[in-house]
């Protein structure tokens, strides 16, 4: 802990060093400012805002990060609040203070450094802005907000307060994704010209059912109403309501469309989407959505197809596929879905394999077929794998990056401005699907 004789307080130090770095530096930028050994050993005092499913996932991921002190937990559901307090007590041996109301928490807890916001999407923007304006650095789950204007307000608040605001696109800190982009796509131009992208997240009906709860634990109606929920069903299933979230394209698609935009380094020029309530007839949001984005990159045009289906697991789970003239990269948070395929016309990769950039996969068995059509097919591409794997919970590297930035040891990998630039096209998917019209994306659509 910091000594009394220190010139600046821990909170001042954290704020000044973080402000010195500023938001939105390039990926992997070296640290500009470094905390002293004493400062680095100091605890960061953290508030957990929202302790539902995702709040628990984030706490599990943070439990492996040293130097954190979970000081307060805020959740309107007493069940979540009690569970959060008990889990933190078990983790750190100290009981955090619990609050149902964020305003009360921020008014009472004056020594907080950072907040982890994992509330429903329509609360992300108000909660993030409250915390930033109270002087806290914020890690907020994606999607930034349920409306583009609310997301814009988050960017403005981050830049006005000078505090850090990391958005939870955790793949941005995943070593597999960073290695693929920095070492293979940019460093080795391994894909040649990327000409097409395909991505999907397909979930079975069984994984898309309404979330249940024990009615004995229901929140009182007046409390639900105070925080914007019509009833417990809305509270538990806010992802299916239009006023509370962006639906599956936002909830699941945002992770992967973010990768499209991050890897290409540009925003799409247009979006054309189709969606429907094909199985869950009474849900406000589409249960299935298909989207085409058109990009113009320095190398040429790229079309990207993305589908999110909450009605079938067909097609092999969730991944992004970057298709190039010389190689195709299939990448996912799951290593099982990650492979790189060399086009037969591309230069050999023996050197990349011998230097450890790639691992050669066992050759796929040749298909024996008398089908005459098969003779028109291109030769099957060779499959390669990435070296290494992520040995941590998927969210941990992104949280580590956030806390490193709070300590002044790193730049954020996904600050609110960069997240907004990547998320902005997603806000136009549902309008395109609803109107059944393509939307040309202009600066007005995509800028803060």
């Amino acid at each position, binding site marked *: 802990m910091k000594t009394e004789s220190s010139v600046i307080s821990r909170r001042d130090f954290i704020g000044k060093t973080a402000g010195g770095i500023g938001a939105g530096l390039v990926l992997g930028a070296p640290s500009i400012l470094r905390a002293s050994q004493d400062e680095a050993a100091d605890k960061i005092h953290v508030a957990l805002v929202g302790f539902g499913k995702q709040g628990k996932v984030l706490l599990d991921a943070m439990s492996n990060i040293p130097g954190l002190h979970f000081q307060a937990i805020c959740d309107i559901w007493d069940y979540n609040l009690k569970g959060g307090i*008990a889990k933190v007590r078990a983790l750190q041996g100290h009981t955090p203070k619990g609050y149902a109301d964020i305003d009360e928490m921020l008014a009472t807890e004056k020594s907080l450094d950072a907040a982890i916001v994992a509330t429903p999407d329509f609360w992300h923007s108000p909660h993030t802005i409250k915390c930033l304006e109270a002087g806290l650095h914020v890690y907020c789950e994606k999607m930034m907000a349920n409306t583009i204007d609310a997301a814009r307000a988050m960017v403005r608040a981050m830049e006005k307060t000078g505090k850090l605001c990391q958005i939870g696109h955790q793949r941005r800190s995943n070593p597999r994704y960073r290695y693929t982009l920095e070492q293979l796509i940019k460093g080795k131009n391994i894909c040649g010209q990327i000409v097409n992208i395909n991505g999907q997240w397909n979930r079975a009906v069984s994984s898309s059912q309404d979330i249940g709860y024990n009615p004995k634990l229901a929140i009182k109606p007046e409390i639900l109403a105070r925080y914007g929920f019509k009833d417990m069903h809305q509270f538990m299933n806010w992802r299916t309501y239009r006023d509370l979230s962006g639906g599956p394209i936002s909830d699941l698609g945002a992770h992967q469309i973010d990768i499209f935009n991050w890897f290409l380094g540009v925003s799409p020029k247009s979006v054309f989407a189709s969606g429907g309530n094909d199985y869950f007839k009474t849900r406000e949001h589409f249960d299935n959505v298909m989207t085409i984005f058109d990009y113009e990159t320095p190398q040429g045009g790229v079309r990207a197809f993305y589908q999110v289906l909450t009605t079938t697991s067909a097609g092999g789970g969730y991944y992004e596929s970057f298709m190039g003239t010389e190689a195709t990269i299939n990448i996912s948070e799951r290593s099982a879905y990650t492979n790189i395929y060399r086009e037969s016309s591309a230069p050999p990769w023996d050197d990349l394999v011998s230097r450890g950039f790639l691992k050669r996969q066992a050759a796929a068995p040749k298909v024996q077929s008398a089908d005459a059509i098969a003779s028109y097919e291109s030769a099957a591409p060779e499959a390669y794998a990435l070296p290494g794997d992520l040995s941590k919970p998927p969210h941990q590297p992104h949280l580590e990056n956030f806390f490193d930035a709070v300590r002044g040891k790193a730049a954020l990998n996904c600050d609110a401005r960069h997240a907004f630039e990547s998320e902005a096209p997603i806000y136009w998917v549902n309008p395109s699907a609803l109107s059944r019209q393509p939307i040309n994306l202009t600066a007005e659509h995509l800028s803060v």
Partner: protein
Amino acid sequence: MKKQHIASTVFTIAALAIAGCEKKSPQEAAAGGEAPSTIAKGVPLNTEFPPELIEGTPQPMDVPNLVQALVEPPKLLVPESTTLLSKGKMVTGSEESPLIGELSLITDGDKEAGEGYYVELSGGPQWVQIDLEQSAEVSAVWVWHFHSQKRAYNDVVIQISDDAEFKTGVTTIYNNDYDDSSKLGKGSDSPYVESRFGLLVDAKGAKGRYVRLHSQGNTSNDSNHYIEVEVHGKAL
């Protein structure tokens, strides 16, 4: 969390050899779509199953010999006099105050996957214990740890005894702690993926008043969970 298993060809071959000459548990038989292979006479054991509800993103499960999630109920023949003995019975545990929920949820009859139906105990080796109030001849124990996500619990060991301290007269009816990391003895049962059909264990008439269930985290996190445990048998 249990240490990562290093895949071994030798291990796999050995396991296949053993699998070929041993009777399968109800879980393994159901996973393979086979008929039960325990006792020849008796009546089918039935229970009510909760609806399927899977949430969130699947987490990797790097566990050897993993029995995949059941898509149909496991089957077991039990003596005709078998009844549900555990409903509403007192539950104690290695942790007096669970992190989430209460121990009484384990015998309350609710097997739903949603919030408020499960009890969560801290990480590391933990146990819960059901007091049947009198000694019984136990035919089967049916366990639902947590089924709103496909995951496997580590070092699941189920024991029956008349000794509340489990120091004497202990019968182990299930043990998938393949590397004895819980120090309760090395087990030969297969780890399994949780599902709404639970884990059905043939207790083969083991006698005792207390049923103790051990675990040590799961493939998604360090915590230990229980939604429901049913003990079926005949009170003595």
